[in-house]
């Protein structure tokens, strides 16, 4: 600092605006009794395929909806609409991640009390989404068996920001000589005690356990609402 200057204290969080909106969203989700799950991964890890199966399998028993983020196209919303669940696409233009304000405006026109589960599929990106709270209750980070066992070590921040690791495309595990033990060790190294789920949305392997896990999490987060509905 040169002698001609002085210091003014500011102390302001750069993500403050996002955090304020995310906090308001979380409160809205809680008030409406909807359990919100977000999904992050690199492009091509199988977020949309898993989400399509999830919506289809949950829909007979729960009221489900989804928001899906991409830079461009409505392709994912069209795919997910096959599940018959309400789906909205968020196209971010050139922005590489979803922000709480995008979720907030995408929800306009929906009554959140109409849903038991809301899924938010983030833009395929393992870097930027880690900085943005979307107000979700549970954040899943997906990685497919084809991505290499050291992925968690290469992208520790996103794994650290998530609650659950979902290993996808288990049906390809043998072909790529997937080493589940090494992945589990790497995940535990960057995020000790993280829950790990292994599945294949295509073959159905592991899907029952995954859905039971989601349901149990919903019960844990929204206990009052569950008893009211059953």
């Amino acid at each position, binding site marked *: 600092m040169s002698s001609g200057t002085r210091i003014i204290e*500011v102390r*302001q969080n750069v993500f403050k605006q996002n955090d304020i909106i995310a906090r308001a969203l979380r409160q809205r989700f809680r008030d409406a009794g909807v359990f919100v799950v977000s999904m992050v991964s690199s492009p091509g890890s199988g977020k949309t395929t898993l989400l399509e199966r999830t919506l289809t399998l949950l829909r007979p028993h729960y009221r489900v909806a989804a928001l899906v983020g991409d830079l461009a196209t409505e392709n994912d919303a069209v795919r997910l609409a096959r599940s018959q669940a309400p789906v909205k696409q968020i196209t971010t233009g050139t922005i590489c991640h979803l922000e709480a304000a995008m979720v907030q405006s995408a929800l306009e026109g929906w009554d959140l009390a109409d849903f038991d589960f809301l899924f938010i599929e983030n833009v395929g990106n393992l*870097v930027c989404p880690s900085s943005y709270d979307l107000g979700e209750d549970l954040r899943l980070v997906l990685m497919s068996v084809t991505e290499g066992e050291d992925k968690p070590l290469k992208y520790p921040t996103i794994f650290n920001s998530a609650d659950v690791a979902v290993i996808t495309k288990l049906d390809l595990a043998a072909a790529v000589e997937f080493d589940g033990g090494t992945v589990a060790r790497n995940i535990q190294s960057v995020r000790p005690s993280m829950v790990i789920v292994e599945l294949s949305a295509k073959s159905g392997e592991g899907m029952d356990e995954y859905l039971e896990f989601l349901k149990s999490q919903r019960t844990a987060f929204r206990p009052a609402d569950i008893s009211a509905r059953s």
Partner: protein
Amino acid sequence: MHELSVAMSIIEIAEEESKRRGGLQISAVHLRLGLLSGVVKDALLFAYEIARHDTPLAASRLVVEEVPGVIYCPACEGRRPVGSLEWFCCAECGSLASELVQGKELEVVSLEVEK
């Protein structure tokens, strides 16, 4: 790569503070950047040079203080530095610890202004 939008937010915060105080000539913005903020220091410094163009902060510098990760270690019963992002354990005893107490910061701490 979201550092550009982060840099623009930093400039916005500084501009608002300047307006609130009736106009300041800002020569530097001091920022605290946590290990787990998801923002890369070098990319942010580069983005700041672009973002400051045509703003009242065009001549300002961004000064980044990196904040290390700190966890609560249940074995040591205290705050301890984290080994690294890839080895998220107590740097002293190696115990697994998931409770982060410091390291997510991304905060404009202060402005350096002309007297």
